C-alpha cells in the first residue's frame, strides 16, 4: 500500500516537472531561436560580430570576413504566452537584412534617399523590402520582415532542425542580395 502511494507521489512530481519544463521551454523560445540562428549562420561561414537585446527584440549581426558581406537579424517572439503558443502555434517576427560594403559615396547617398522613401512604407507588413545605409561603416543594407512558424524548426524536446533554418536564411539572403545588386547596378 505504502509503495503504491510512493509511486503516486513520484508520478505527481514527474508530471509537475513536465508542466514546469513546458512553460520554461516556451519562455526560452526566443533565446532558442537566437541560438539556432547563430549556429546556422556561423555554420554557413559567417562570423557573429554583434549580439544585443532590448528585452523584446534581439539583434544579431554577422559578417563574411573575406568579402565583408553582412547579415543582420531582428528577432521577436510573438507567442510568449503558453496559451497563444498552444492555440496559434509558436511564431516569431524575423527581419533579415543583407548588407554590402560600398566604397562609392554616390551609391551610399542614393541608398540614403531610398532609406528616406522606405520611411513612408509600412515596414511592419511582411515581405516589404526596405533600404538602409550605415554612413559611418559605409554599408548599404536591404531588409525584409517575415513571420516565421517556429514549430517547423523546434520540436518539443529542444531539438532544432538547423538544416531547414539554414535553408530558409540562405534563400532569403539570396533574394536580398539580388535586389541590392540590382539597385547598385552591379
Amino acid at each position, binding site marked *: 500500500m505504502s509503495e503504491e502511494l510512493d509511486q503516486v507521489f*513520484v508520478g505527481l512530481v514527474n508530471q509537475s516537472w513536465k508542466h514546469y519544463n513546458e512553460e520554461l521551454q516556451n519562455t526560452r523560445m526566443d533565446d532558442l531561436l537566437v541560438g539556432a540562428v547563430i549556429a546556422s549562420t556561423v555554420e554557413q561561414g559567417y562570423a557573429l*560580430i554583434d549580439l544585443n537585446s532590448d528585452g523584446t527584440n534581439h539583434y544579431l549581426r554577422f559578417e563574411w570576413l573575406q568579402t565583408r558581406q553582412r547579415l543582420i537579424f531582428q528577432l521577436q517572439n510573438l507567442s510568449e504566452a503558453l496559451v497563444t503558443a498552444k492555440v496559434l502555434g509558436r511564431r516569431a517576427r524575423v527581419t533579415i537584412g543583407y548588407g554590402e560594403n560600398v566604397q562609392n559615396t554616390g551609391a551610399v547617398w542614393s541608398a540614403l534617399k531610398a532609406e528616406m522613401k522606405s520611411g513612408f512604407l509600412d515596414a511592419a507588413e511582411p515581405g516589404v523590402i526596405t533600404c538602409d545605409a550605415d554612413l559611418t561603416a559605409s554599408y548599404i543594407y536591404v531588409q525584409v520582415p517575415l513571420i516565421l512558424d517556429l514549430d517547423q524548426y523546434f520540436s518539443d524536446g529542444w531539438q532544432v532542425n538547423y538544416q531547414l533554418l539554414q535553408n530558409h536564411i540562405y534563400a532569403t539572403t539570396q533574394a536580398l542580395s539580388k535586389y541590392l545588386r540590382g539597385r547598385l547596378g552591379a
Partner: protein
Amino acid sequence: MFSFLSNFKHGQEMRESKDEILVGEIVRAMARLQCPAIGFMAGTGEQNVRFKPLNDPVLHSVIITLDRKTGGSALQQAVLGSKATITIQAEVKNYLADPDDLINMYRTDIANIFKVPMLGDVRLDHQLNSILATKKNLIDIDAYILKGEESAQRLSQLLNGVINELRQKLAPYKKA
C-alpha cells in the same frame, strides 16, 4: 580617402568584436555537440550562454561565460594578445530534493566557502535540487577563431574535454 578610413574603422570593429566571434563559434560548437543554446546574457565584456545537453543521462544544463580581459585596443592586442577567461559550469538536477540532501549539501557548501578555486580547478556547489561543477580556464581568443575548421575543432575539443571532466565529477550526485 573614404576607402582608407573605412578599412581603418573595419579593423578596429573586428578587434572589438573578437569576443562576439568566439561566442558565435561556441554556440556552433555546442550545437554540433547536441547542446542547443537556450539562454543569453550579455554585459560589458562578459557574455553568458546557457545550453541544454540533449539525451545526456547526467547533465541538465551547461553554462559558458566568456570574460574578455585584454585585446580591446590595437596596443593591447599587439602586446598581450586577446586573453579571456572561459568559465564552464555544468548542472545536475535531481527532480526530488529531500531534507537529508539539503543537510549534506550544507556541509559541502560550508567547506566550499574557504576554498578559492585556482584556474583549472573544479569547484562543486549546491543549490537546492541542483549540483553545479565549475571550471575556469584562461585562453587566447585568437587560437579559437578565424582559422576555419582547424580552430572550430580546437574549440570543440576544449569544450568537450571540460564538459566530460565536469560530467565525471557530477555523476555520483545524480539520483535515478
